[in-house]
């Protein structure tokens, strides 16, 4: 790909028109290509190439177990359309995205508003809410798997103690995905919390002072001034969160030891890609599924792009 940019020369060859170059001045440095080259090499090798290679693979039967590769045209994509498991796991993924995005935004906003009131112990609050985000996913899931045990788990123990029935966090088909959501909220809410906190702290004091002169109290101020000012941040958080939630794999995989949960009820589409490619040896078909998922991500990303451009314009 990068082969078209041929070298370090910045002096245009005689007769070449360079309309984009306004002034060949000191503001541009020579040797730019060499600066970019190391990045381009790793980027080409480990992003661009696999993107194309994966696309190519999706038209072949490629086996992990060593069987010869054969060209199958669009068979993999045709198979995918009729593969109930693709749509089921895609459904789980979308459901997870909805179920996790809402609390991840509301809870993080609530946390940020509470901490921003300025009560003592700022360091402690921030630490408590953000610390789980720093833990490796395995630590998080091992702990929660233990908390969610049916017979001797902490959560059911507490439920039992207050007289509520036990819940089959890890064994009940209708609960399994919710368990993954709970874990994810606990684990990652701290990130959104920090984004909100930064946004809150960026609101100039003068805005509040003006409101105070008008006699607005703390709660009314929050509703009438703070929340509207956070609209931009909320847009950003929503988009980042949706993109992150769509990519769910690690928690769900580890929580159920790769089984996808009771009846497969908590298997996201990335796990189906993994299972197809690595557990069932069908790398070509797994690639095809990846690309359908990729298309979904692109759509959401473009949505994000449009959104941030619109926001940029209104802000300007």
């Amino acid at each position: 790909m990068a082969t078209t940019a041929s070298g370090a020369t910045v002096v245009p060859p005689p007769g070449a028109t360079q309309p984009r170059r306004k002034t060949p001045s000191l503001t541009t440095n020579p040797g730019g290509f060499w600066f970019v080259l190391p990045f381009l090499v790793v980027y080409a090798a480990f992003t661009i190439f696999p993107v194309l290679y994966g696309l190519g693979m999706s038209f072949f039967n490629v086996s992990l177990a060593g069987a010869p590769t054969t060209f199958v045209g669009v068979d993999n994509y045709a198979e995918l359309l009729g593969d109930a498991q693709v749509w089921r796991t895609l459904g789980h993924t979308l459901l997870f995205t909805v179920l996790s995005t809402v609390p991840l935004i509301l809870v993080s906003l609530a946390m940020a508003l509470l901490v921003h009131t300025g009560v003592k112990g700022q360091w402690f609050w921030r630490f408590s809410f953000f610390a789980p985000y720093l833990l490796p996913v395995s630590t998080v899931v091992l702990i929660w798997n233990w908390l969610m045990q049916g017979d001797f788990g902490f959560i059911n123990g507490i439920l039992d103690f207050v007289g509520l029935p036990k819940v089959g966090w890890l064994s009940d088909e209708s609960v399994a995905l919710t368990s993954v959501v709970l874990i994810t909220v606990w684990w990652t809410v701290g990130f959104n919390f920090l984004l909100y906190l930064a946004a809150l702290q960026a609101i100039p004091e003068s805005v509040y002072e003006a409101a105070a002169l008008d006699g607005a109290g703390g709660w009314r101020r929050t509703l009438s001034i703070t929340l509207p000012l956070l609209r931009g941040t909320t847009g950003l958080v929503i988009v980042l969160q949706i993109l992150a939630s769509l990519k769910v794999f690690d928690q769900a995989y580890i929580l159920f030891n790769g089984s996808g949960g009771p009846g497969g009820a908590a298997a996201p589409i990335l796990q189906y890609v993994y299972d197809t490619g690595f557990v069932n040896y069908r790398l070509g078909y797994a690639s095809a599924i990846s690309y359908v998922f990729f298309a979904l991500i692109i759509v959401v990303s473009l949505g994000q792009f449009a959104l941030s451009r619109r926001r940029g314009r209104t802000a300007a």
Partner: protein
Amino acid sequence: MTRTTPSRRTVLRAAGAAAAGVGATGLASCATPVTGSGSGTQLAYWNFFTGGDGERMVELVDSYRAEAPSVDVTATTLMWGAPYYTKLAMACAGGRAPDLATMHVSRLGPFAAHLLDPFDLDELAARGITQDQFPSRVWENAQVDGELYALPLDTHPMVLYVNTDLCSQAGLMGDDGELAPITSVEQFFDAGRRLAEVTGSTGISWAAADGLASWMMFWSIFRQMGGVMELPDGGPAQVDREVMTATFSFIRDMTDGTICSQTLDGPAAPAVFASQQAGLFVLGPWELITAETAGIPFTMVPFPALFGDAPLIRADSHSFVLPRQLSVDPERRAAAYDMAASMLRNSLSWAGGGHIPALSAVSESPEFLTLEPQSNYAEAAEFVEYDPAAYFSGSGSQLMSYGGQQILGVSTRAQTPEQATENLVTWLDQQLAIPSPV
């Protein structure tokens, strides 16, 4: 942004220095990852045994370590089932697989062709291991295309656990103090009902909601009824639909909530038997220790022939395989042969976990024959029925998982036996229509 405090600068510089230091040492060890100490031959061995089997596997490995002190054995235990086979296949494909690995014989299919090396029979003979020492069924199934790819350690058929106390209360024990022979479905179901009266709950503990347990029962009964399942590449599946429907009907009749629970899951089934809530229990022999630990009066017998004459029983074998490597170090390969042979010879302790040793020198030894109740069902090794050959079959496979879902659907009355047959056959056809990755 431009203001940097001296303290931060210092910290960053220190971090940089530390990074450089770690980087240097790490890079130096890049080519050969840090493995255990010792100057002798390194040997990496993978398995998936935990719990009681895990402890006995540690004993087996330790006894080889004692025999060959110059070999430095690294034994690694990975997660049972699909995760294990995924890692093993990926390690083989990457060419840096362990020197020796454990595998279910039923999972050989997708591995043998490209991911494993066959055993050299002469090398085995040199270590005193020959074909005539193995039950023929077991040996056959360890072969692919006339080559021996798996060295069987044991056979673990489906067995019947008997609570002697409850069974005698239910009048099921013969005069000889053994369970009176059960030779028909009616007798089996009747035993379940009578036991249910004694226990006040269910008679027979069997995990309908566990793929492994339910598939074992399904496949045994299907084979006892004379069912045949051929899974040729490209399909369609050659299946006796009527027999399959009859098998599902058997499951439905058995899970009436009195004879058997409809929804018992994997961990619960042995627990129900251990707490005397059921008088019979059907699974592989590896829950022997659970029953012993519970201190209940029990014995174990081969699962009876409910249909036909021969007590055909679903079974599998743990075995050792030689993963394919980019470059084979002759010393390590020799040590792998040594270790496999050693573990086979010492498999009497392995039998403590309920498995029937594959090596006749062990399974016919006086020590084993006096082992109770293992010797009761040792003959079952002659009647073992392995899963149908396909890349998606075997222990912990897709077939087991999908078949298990159909069986559970029947036992919970979510679908009829006819629907279950239709689903399973359709699914088999779909799997076979997909070009095999093997």
